[in-house]
């Protein structure tokens, strides 16, 4: 029945005017996503102001398209320049940029587009058919569960490096976490590690840090090189081969599922989804040594997951009025401003709205796919521009993006600081991906650990009391120790015993 309603809504929205809104807004979202510093959150907030007087339907379809477009658009700059356009695409840099450098830029963009599309479809399915069921999952993630999820994030830091050096990955991650503690904390409101500077009370926003560690470092790296590198010729088809996609069907399915589930968890957004999917994909891969050097699988995992996360994040928005990610929080506010009241009442008062909303999402997804594949080749010309011209311009965009987020001059100083910190880090083999992940994870760990203790008066056992916690703990354990000898030994023993049992049984 749901499918019929969805189909009806999709047909109803098929009009020239509506499609114009969708395509223009999606393109705008892609551009916003591409510019370092301007994120999906920012884009939706900006457009909320501009569309305030519009008719509710047009305004909402515009905002959804911006969201979908921006999360996808960030992959462009990640692949072309090694600068993630939004935090969601930081994991895309790991493999997307090496692919582009080896002359497979068109293919990388095509793959990113296709996997974003497939991820978006996974999100669409969750959104339109499972919203009532999955919505309640959001309520299962309380302080303890989110704490363990964050710990799992720390555990995968060691895996997010191109080199085999797990140690440096973890050091990077923990450094990021420590930097995230700067500022007023969430429980008693005490300003930690601020050295008495009021500007540091707000802590480090993720955007200046991201733009500094990726954007500025890349600019400095390119400009300080003596010889200007010859642009790699970018020939090749954009549309990925069907068999490449089919070969990755499990990878796509897995990443889509991870994206949707992480999207549903309140407050945990696209960035973590893409990191986790990347890690899972590396673990499951037959060629894990290719990861970080231009692995197609890694690129697919990251891009599928972050777009699947968009759909996932909107599930609790519709069913409970709880945003699943930071951009979804702004979208929720926009819905309220337009007198649409998502939440538990929506199912009772206007159950068909889910399908209307999903249909908007559907059109935005289609627009993203088509726009993503059509203007790849002119875009690749960016790579042919000499660094001396391109990099100063990129720097201007980095500056504007960083400033625009909060309108604070201090954020520019933060960006420079982290750029100067990350530049030697990169040269010395400390990867930046875990560092950025650490900045995101730090507050999650801090808040939820201490709140969990407050709730149970310091009872440690309560952290192990729910099934979701246990699952996450097991995941952490295997992430950290699966390759160590005793665990392998036990594991091999168990599987051997199991196999012999099966054989005897048959």
């Amino acid at each position, binding site marked *: 029945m749901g499918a019929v309603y969805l189909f009806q809504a999709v047909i109803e929205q098929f009009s020239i005017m509506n499609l114009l809104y969708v395509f223009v807004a999606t393109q705008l979202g892609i551009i916003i996503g591409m510019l370092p510093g301007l994120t999906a959150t920012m884009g939706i907030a900006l457009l909320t102001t501009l569309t305030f007087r519009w008719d509710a339907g047009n305004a909402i379809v515009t905002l959804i398209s911006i969201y979908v477009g921006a999360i996808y658009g960030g992959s462009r700059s990640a692949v072309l320049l090694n600068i993630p356009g939004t935090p969601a695409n930081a994991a895309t840099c790991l493999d997307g940029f090496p692919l582009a450098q080896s002359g497979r830029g068109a293919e990388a963009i095509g793959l990113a587009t296709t996997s974003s599309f497939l991820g978006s479809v996974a999100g669409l399915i969750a959104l339109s058919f499972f919203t009532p069921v999955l919505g309640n999952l959001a309520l299962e993630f309380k302080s303890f569960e989110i704490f363990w999820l964050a710990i799992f994030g720390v555990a995968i830091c060691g895996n997010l490096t191109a080199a085999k050096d797990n140690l440096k990955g973890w050091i990077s991650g923990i450094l990021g976490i420590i930097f995230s503690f700067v500022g007023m904390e969430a429980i008693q409101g005490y300003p930690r590690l601020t050295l008495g500077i*009021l500007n540091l009370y707000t802590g480090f926003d993720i955007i200046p840090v991201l733009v500094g560690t990726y954007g500025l470092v890349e600019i400095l790296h390119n400009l300080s090189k003596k010889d200007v590198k010859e642009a790699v010729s970018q020939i090749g088809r954009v549309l990925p081969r069907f068999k490449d996609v089919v070969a990755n069907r499990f990878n796509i399915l897995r990443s889509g599922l991870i994206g949707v589930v992480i999207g549903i968890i309140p407050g945990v957004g696209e960035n973590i989804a893409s990191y986790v999917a990347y890690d899972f994909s590396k673990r499951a891969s037959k060629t894990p040594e290719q990861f970080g050097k231009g692995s197609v699988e890694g690129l697919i995992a990251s891009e599928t997951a972050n777009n699947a996360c968009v759909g996932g994040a909107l599930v609790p928005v519709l069913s409970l009025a709880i945003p699943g990610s930071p951009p979804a929080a702004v979208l929720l506010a926009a819905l309220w401003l337009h007198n649409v009241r998502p939440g538990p009442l929506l199912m009772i008062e206007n159950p068909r709205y889910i399908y209307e909303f999903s249909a908007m999402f559907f059109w935005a997804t289609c627009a993203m796919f088509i726009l993503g594949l059509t203007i790849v080749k002119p875009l690749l010309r960016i790579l042919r521009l000499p660094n001396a011209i391109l990099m100063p311009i990129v720097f201007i965009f980095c500056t504007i993006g960083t400033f625009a987020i909060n309108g604070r001059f201090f954020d520019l100083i933060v960006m420079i600081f982290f750029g100067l910190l990350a530049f030697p880090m990169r040269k010395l083999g400390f990867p930046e991906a875990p560092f950025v992940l650490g900045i995101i994870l730090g507050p999650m760990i801090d808040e939820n650990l201490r709140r969990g203790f407050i709730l149970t008066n310091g009872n440690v056992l309560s952290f192990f009391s729910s099934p979701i916690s246990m699952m996450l703990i097991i995941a952490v354990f295997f992430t950290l120790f699966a390759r160590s000898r005793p665990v392998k030994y036990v594991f091999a023993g168990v599987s051997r015993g199991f196999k012999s049992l099966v054989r005897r049984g048959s």
Partner: protein
Amino acid sequence: MRKKISVSLCLVLLVLPGLLFAAGTKEKSSVGGWKPTKTITLVVPWGAGGSSDLTARILAGEMENRLGVKIAVVNQPGASGATGTKAAFEAPKDGYTWVGNADMSIATYQILDLLPEISHRDWQAYLGILTPCVITVNPDSPIKDWDGLVHAFKTREVAVASAGIGAGGHVAAETFVKYIGTKYKHVPYKGGNPAVVATVSGETEVVMQLSQEVADMLRAKKLRAIAVMDNKPLMITGLDLIPPITNYIKEFPTVAFHFGLFIPRGIPQEAQDSISEAFAVAVQSKALKDMAEQKASIAVDIKGKEADTVMENAASLFSWLLFDTHVTKISPEKLGIPRP
């Protein structure tokens, strides 16, 4: 040929959004003596989607028309809104920088030592929304009514969620236990929405956040209302009246928050007049009334001297409460704030 087409297509798609959105920004004629010539910046020192943000965005949207210029809403969250408020205060006093915040926050930055140099008296307030705190519990909780609530607080340690130290729910809970004479377990979250969600999910039993933040969950029966911290009952469309707390404790003060715009004093008089006039129109708008109805709060029109009184009362009530509960060590007396 194909290259040319794709390049031009690329250009068209780049330019089109600009044109489309530029079309919506036609300048309209302004009123009053003051003719703003550039975009007004409205700093909301909280995240997008919160109560301050919603109120500010609606007011901005309505006032744009009257003033004839665009009003850009900029979210500058962090440090309980202190840094964003400070930045706006330090901007040139020409009427082009406003703040969208709550009376309580503006009134307590000084006492919490976040902005030691800026007093609530340095601001002219324009308050558009009034929203009282509501005592609500998780529907599975054994607490069914007022007596049950008092009994629970007296016999066990009840976990109360709040949006953080000094936030609405915290102030309400502290006031409540002051009158009941018990203790409770304060569980702070990062914002009103997470605190309400924690109570819906059962992680905490009680939440006393603003009516705005709990209205939809009450309507959906995911929370149960016990009383509103006001002297008149609260009406939420589709629900029974929520009894006022003064039904049970006569002298219980009203714990309610005003949301609106704050503009530093010392801007040109004609700018002040024009803003006042535009504000008066904006609070009568359907958009604000709809939002108030939907979010179980009240659209008000408080400005000028009346707003100063409201701010003074808020400062006195909240500062002393924070001092008495040892949240802050600075005495309100030092700042010349009388005890309520």
